[in-house]
């Protein structure tokens, strides 16, 4: 682990973000646990048929959402792919509303009409989960355009998988963001696979950050299992974005589950051993060790936090379960705005 504090002390880099105080660190752990427990429950609910459709879990990648969103202000914007439960929770959408959305209930954050891939929360500037690979990356540039147009100083943080780098929309969006100096951070969660395809089988160069050079853009490669490293890189990128300089972050991470609930955890495309090996880098284990080592939390406190999170997620499931389906009239509502 390279906690922001330590990294800063070592390098004395004046552009380094200010160190996170202990209570922020505990909050980060809470968020990571929340995502983990939420996703575990979602997997259970999916198996029970309470969640339908495609459901892409975030287990293993928690440090990415947690570390990067820690660098945002409340009025900043986020936009994501379909693998966005983590970002939604960390951004502060109540777990009950997220779970209710997965259950398709009227109380869900998209009123049951979006589902797992389309979580939205306008008031939290959570601009959605989007289902077409790469399709939301130009939207991020557009949100950045909107911010700049109005003279705001917010930024837009955009998450996507490494496989999206192979699709045209990524390139068109990066170019425009660079030409127009938009306040956008493009965060590629490189978890090595797009569904069952290893990145090196479909990308000429697996070094995603290299693409930034073609757009005269700053970039960084980041260890996505280290929440401090993610925070540090994101904070720098966010600061740059506020000055009108977009950044491409390549965050190296790993998904511990199958691509979606319909897909196998391992198989022809990756071995069980590889998954087990990667699990040793579990970002939550890393963070708890750090907190213990630094004397910031003892095991009892961690267990208590985990129990608290468990209870919150159980309550979310209960809420979702007991919430009503949308009324029939919802079918034809919101096709058009007034």
């Amino acid at each position, binding site marked *: 682990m390279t906690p922001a504090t330590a990294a800063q002390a070592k390098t004395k880099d004046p552009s380094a973000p200010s160190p996170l105080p202990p209570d922020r660190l505990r909050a980060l752990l809470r968020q990571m646990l929340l995502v983990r427990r939420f996703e575990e429950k979602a997997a259970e609910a999916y198996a029970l048929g309470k969640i339908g459709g495609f459901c892409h879990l975030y287990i293993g990648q928690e440090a990415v959402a947690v570390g990067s969103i820690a660098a945002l202000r409340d009025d900043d*914007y986020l*936009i994501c792919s379909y693998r966005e439960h983590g970002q939604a929770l960390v951004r502060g959408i109540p777990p009950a509303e997220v779970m209710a959305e997965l259950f398709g209930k009227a109380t*869900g*954050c*998209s*009123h*049951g*009409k*979006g589902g797992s891939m*389309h979580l*939205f*929360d*306008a008031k939290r500037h959570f*601009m*959605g989960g*989007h*289902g*077409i690979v790469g*399709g*939301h*990356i*130009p*939207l*991020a*540039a*557009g*949100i*950045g*355009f*909107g*911010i700049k*147009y*109005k003279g705001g100083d917010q930024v*837009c943080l955009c998450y996507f998988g490494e496989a999206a780098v192979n699709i*045209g*929309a990524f390139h*068109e*969006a990066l*170019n*425009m963001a660079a*030409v*127009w100096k938009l306040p956008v951070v493009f965060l590629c969660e490189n978890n090595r696979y797009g569904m069952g395809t290893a990145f090196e089988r479909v990308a000429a160069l697996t070094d995603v950050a290299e693409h930034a050079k073609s757009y005269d853009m700053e970039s960084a490669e980041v260890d996505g299992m280290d929440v401090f490293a993610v925070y540090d890189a994101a904070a720098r990128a966010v600061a740059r974005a506020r000055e009108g300089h977009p950044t491409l972050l390549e965050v190296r991470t790993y998904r511990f589950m199958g691509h979606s609930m319909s897909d196998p955890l391992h198989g022809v495309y990756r071995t069980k051993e590889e998954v087990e090996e990667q699990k040793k880098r579990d970002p939550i284990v890393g963070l708890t060790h750090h907190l213990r080592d630094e004397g910031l939390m003892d095991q009892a406190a961690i267990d208590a936090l985990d129990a608290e999170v468990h209870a919150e997620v159980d309550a979310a499931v209960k809420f979702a379960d007991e919430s009503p389906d949308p009324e029939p009239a919802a079918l034809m*509502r*919101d*096709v*058009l*705005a*007034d």
Partner: protein
Amino acid sequence: MPTLTYRDALNQALREEMQRDPNVFLMGEEVGLYQGAYKVSRGLLEEFGPQRVVDTPIAELGFAGVGVGAAMTGLRPVVEFMTWNFAVLALDQIVNSAAKMLYMSGGQFPMPLVFRGPNGAALQLGAQHSQAWESWLAHIPGLKVVAPATPADAKGLLKAAIRDNNPVIVLEGEMLYNTKGEVPDGELVIPIGQADIKRPGTDVTLICHSKTVTVALKAADLLQESGVSAEVVDLRSLRPLDEAAIVASVTKTNRCVVVEEGWHHCGVGAQVVDIIQRDAFDHLDAPVLRVTQVDAPMPYNKVLERAAKSSPEKVVAAARRVLYLD
């Protein structure tokens, strides 16, 4: 009333709406410095500056998405496609982002957004530059689609489109830009969804939109010569369709020809026919016939191109058939 070209009527609509609402901006290829590939945006860069008149790279998918993202922040983008031929690259953003955003967000993100530009064939532009997309776009719930035929309609519908809180597709026409007509100054907002009777008549209804309004009007003239009184109904809006106006006219004339620029199979005319046979079944004295582009890509050669397109002669022939005159 001042006489304006269709081009200048659109330009006036853009200017007035940009003056009225600082959230309205225009983006697209060549809209700024070059004053628009077809000069629809002439003078706007000078008046509103580069932040509100934005030249884009050639990246239709990307800049359509930028428009959607900007609309999510509350702006009211007007996205110009140099022509709709190139917008095929942007359909993912139009259909999957713009048209579905409000719905899939449970009502949280309206899309006050206009996609506009010339649609369909001009003269001898060949297969890839002569595509009429209206039936595709009209298929999609969450969109509104208008296709004005006259300068006044162009102004009034573009203004309505810009003020609408939904993604509105405005289909213009390269061959229309130079056409002239009277256009009221200032406030002219034509509600989307209303057809317009461009010529009243009693014997047969000719339903048309955009460039085929001229075709239908010429056909009506020709029919008049043989004593047939044709009513020309300009749909103006293709989604929603003014079903009441269509049915009212056919209920009166009992015969109908639907003219459109694009291809036959699953065209807009097919939908119009469906409405007529469903809602005016007992009033129909003959099957409704359709005049469309022939079922082939557009050829470059001038003679073949002319033969490929809808024409007054083809409309007259169809009208005579529904009147059982031939």
